């Protein structure tokens, strides 16, 4: 395993830890006071810090450290995790995620923001209330609407139960520049037997510690029993260490990073600046040059004695070798910690949380997992696709050659068909992932927008463990982000307006996912003012989208917001008015083979409902014949099918025809003509009309010659295998081995409006 692979694993672990961190903080925010939740949050930050330290990601380490310190105060009940505290912590979790991403992809981080948060976190750790005037000078966001409840019971420093905490002393000197004066620390280090049981050795920790500066040590052997009664693998030695260093307490604690759970450790700043040889205990000075103790290169021992430069260089080289070796074990330990926390999460039964939430937590934490390269899964899916096609071809040829339906071949074939379907489902399930990560990203978006707009918003998520194909998840984030922005920015009212309307000043945005008839349905509901239909209508008239006297139903008016370039915000805001409208959202949902619709009640809010396929690898399609060609029309696009009667067909202009359906007219589109399968328009009465809904909400009746049936087809990309064909989204292979093209309904509809087919923005599937 090379370093990059290990690093990649670390970042994957980080993602999981960040998710753990956020969900823990959100639970705390909801009033969960289970100590295990706090521990899980703490462990998440701690693990990230540990791994980051191993890779020398200093920014990440220093931020995680301060964060961890503050969390430790919560863990030891010195800081009450009230809403204001959690607000800072959630923001810190966001910054931690940014820092992790920056470390992974080399992006940049808002330095001012992280510095500000470090200050706020330190203030919390020092028992100061969030956002006192002196501590948050650069704060541009409005102060929280509600008063800070019950001041934090920050006990006096000397009260019993107080444990020294990293930074707690330095923080009193925050005005000082970051260069740390050499100071003497007293360290009490008492390993537990587990430390050795896990392969750690106190000797190595002490060696690393001695490198930080001038060290004197006293070994406490009081616990050591007689030889006959001792357990050679138990811990008996403990140490009192005096260390004069300019590296600070953080560096000291980082030495014990992965042993922290397996030892008692106290680090305190010794009074005064003298190199504190303990007054009452005989302290033994530790020799400065311990290089020969580096197990990685013991052979170099003698040579380095005199020549300082050579020694330094060798020590550096050895350090690198040692750290490379230890990184692997650190990452391993991180994984162990993560697993442990997952187990803890499983065993913890939060009494306060709703039962459903507990079940969900258990469901998400339970089974062991393996990481598999996505390419391998894709290859498997591809092969299963081939298998499905092959099985269909086999079935077809058996049916053609054997009319006797009871033959054993036929029965065997049926079983094969069932098995193939099961294999296909199982393979698809491998790619299926819970929507949780995307939902969690949304909670951050909500926080940020709420901050920017000065609104108070609560995001409620439900069904985060609903699974959907990974490709769908990846493409879901962007439209969802935009919709959330819209919901908070446009949907919810300001706290004042809400109060005036007799509502809770805190708005609620509810994000729900569930499976419904083989699709995933994602609902985004806000309890805001609802769509202002008057305003939308006026805007549509101003933009020439509708005629001034158009008679539109409420639903039709609501759907106007999906039109290109439609924005009702009076002024272009920083948040939603980025030139991307709900039309883009709709288009990206449609590109995923999904649909979106909106229901809005004035004064009560709006609900956006998205229905998406569970996978992009297969598609439920209607197999149709057009000019003796077989085509597949995605079932999601079809609203209804009908057999046109001659009386319902009306000519319009030179070549346009309309079909009247329930007292409304709908343009008739001859697919064969649009695709140039035939030179003249077919007679509508001889064919079948498929009523489809396309981009922009308009309906069209697509004329095809006949419907062959409905089936699930495996999507094969035309772009990858051939080249892009206008009006065609992808292809598939039918049971008889023929290639059938999958229609791009939107492109066909656009072409029917007189736009040319080539270079349309096609909804490419697969």
């Amino acid at each position, binding site marked *: 395993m090379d370093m990059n692979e290990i690093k990649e694993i670390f970042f994957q672990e980080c993602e999981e830890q960040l998710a753990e961190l956020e969900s823990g903080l959100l639970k705390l925010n909801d009033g969960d006071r289970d100590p295990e939740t706090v521990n899980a949050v703490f462990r998440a930050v701690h693990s990230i810090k540990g791994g980051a330290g191993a890779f020398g990601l200093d920014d990440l380490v220093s931020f995680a450290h301060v964060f961890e310190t503050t969390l430790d105060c919560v863990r030891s009940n010195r800081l009450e995790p009230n809403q204001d505290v959690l607000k800072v912590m959630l923001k810190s979790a966001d910054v931690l995620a940014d820092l992790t991403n920056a470390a992974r992809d080399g992006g940049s981080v808002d330095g001012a923001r992280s510095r500000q948060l470090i200050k706020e976190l330190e203030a919390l750790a020092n028992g100061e209330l969030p956002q006192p005037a002196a501590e948050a000078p650069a704060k541009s966001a409005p102060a929280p609407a509600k008063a800070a409840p019950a001041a934090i019971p920050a006990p006096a420093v000397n009260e019993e139960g107080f444990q020294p905490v990293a930074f707690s002393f330095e923080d009193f000197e925050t005005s000082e520049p970051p260069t740390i004066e050499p100071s003497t620390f007293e360290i009490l280090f008492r*390993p537990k037997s587990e430390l*050795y049981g896990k*392969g750690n*050795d*106190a*000797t190595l920790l*002490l*060696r690393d510690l*001695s490198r930080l500066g001038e060290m004197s*040590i*006293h*070994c406490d*052997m009081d616990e*050591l*029993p*007689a*030889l*006959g009664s*001792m357990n*050679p*693998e138990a*811990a*008996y*030695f403990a*140490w009192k260490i005096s260390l004069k260093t300019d590296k600070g307490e953080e560096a000291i604690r980082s030495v014990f990073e992965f042993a922290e759970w397996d030892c008692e450790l106290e680090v305190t700043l010794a009074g005064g600046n003298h190199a504190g040889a303990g007054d009452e205990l005989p*302290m*033994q*000075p*530790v*020799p400065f040059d*311990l290089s*020969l*103790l580096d*197990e990685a290169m*013991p052979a170099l*021992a003698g040579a380095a004695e005199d020549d300082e430069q050579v020694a330094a260089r060798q020590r550096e080289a050895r350090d690198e070798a040692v750290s490379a070796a230890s990184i692997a074990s650190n990452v391993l330990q991180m994984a162990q910690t993560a697993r442990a926390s997952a187990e803890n999460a499983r065993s913890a039964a939060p009494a306060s949380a709703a039962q459903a939430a507990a079940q969900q937590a258990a469901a998400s934490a339970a089974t062991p997992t393996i990481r598999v390269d996505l390419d391998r899964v894709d290859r498997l899916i591809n092969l299963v696709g081939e298998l499905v096609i092959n099985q269909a071809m086999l079935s077809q040829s058996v049916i053609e050659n054997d009319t006797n339906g009871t033959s054993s071949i036929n029965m065997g074939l049926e079983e094969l068909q069932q098995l193939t379907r099961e294999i296909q489902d199982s393979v698809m399930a491998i790619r299926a992932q819970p929507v949780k990560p995307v939902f969690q990203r949304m909670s951050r978006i909500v926080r940020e927008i709420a901050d920017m707009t000065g609104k108070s918003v609560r995001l409620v998520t439900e069904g985060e463990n609903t699974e959907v194909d990974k490709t769908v998840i990846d493409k879901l984030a962007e439209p969802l982000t935009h919709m959330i922005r819209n919901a908070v920015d446009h949907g919810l009212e300001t706290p004042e307006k809400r109060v005036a309307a007799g509502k809770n000043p805190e708005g609620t945005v509810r994000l729900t996912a569930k499976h419904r008839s083989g699709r995933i349905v994602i609902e985004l509901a806000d309890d805001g003012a609802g769509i202002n239909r008057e305003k939308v209508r006026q805007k549509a008239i101003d933009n020439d989208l509708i005629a001034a006297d158009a008679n539109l139903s409420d639903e039709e008016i609501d759907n106007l917001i999906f039109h290109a370039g439609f924005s009702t915000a009076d002024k272009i805001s920083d948040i939603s008015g980025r030139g991307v409208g709900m039309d883009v959202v709709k288009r990206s949902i449609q590109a995923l083979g999904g649909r979106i619709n909106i229901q809005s009640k004035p004064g009560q809010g709006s609900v956006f409902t998205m229905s998406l396929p569970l996978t992009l690898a297969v598609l439920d399609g209607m197999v149709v014949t057009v000019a003796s060609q077989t085509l597949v029309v995605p079932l999601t696009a079809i609203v209804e099918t009908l057999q046109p009667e001659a009386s319902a067909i009306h000519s319009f202009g030179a070549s346009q025809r309309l079909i009247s359906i329930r007292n409304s007219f709908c343009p008739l589109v001859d697919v064969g003509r649009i695709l140039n399968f035939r030179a003249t328009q077919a007679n509508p009465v001889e064919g079948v009309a498929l009523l489809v809904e396309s981009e922009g909400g308009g309906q069209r009746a697509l004329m095809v010659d006949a419907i062959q049936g409905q089936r699930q087809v495996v999507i094969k990309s035309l772009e990858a295998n051939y080249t892009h064909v206008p009006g065609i989204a992808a292809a598939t292979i039918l049971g008889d081995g023929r290639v059938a093209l999958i229609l791009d309904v939107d492109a066909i509809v656009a072409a029917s409006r007189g736009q040319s087919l080539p270079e349309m923005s096609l909804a490419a599937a697969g």
Partner: protein
Amino acid sequence: MASRNIAKKSLKLAPVLDLNEATALHERLLTLKGAPIEIDASAVERIGTLCAQVLMAGARSWEEDRMSFTFAKVSDAFVKTTQLIGVDVAPLMAKEI
């Protein structure tokens, strides 16, 4: 002294005395109990805390038995490690060193 009449035994320590060696060293020392012991630590390249604990427990037991427990030869690594972990072996060094 009682130890005068009993033959002195010797124990040569392995070069690597890590966590895995502690149990073996413990057993080895137990079998040598009852006689003065001279330990040869000249080959030691690495010694971990657990083995240091065993040696120090041994030194105490020998002392309780009023038997001598000495280090005849020690390597540089052995001395530095014991210094590092605050275990003072100087009083246990054989006089001639």
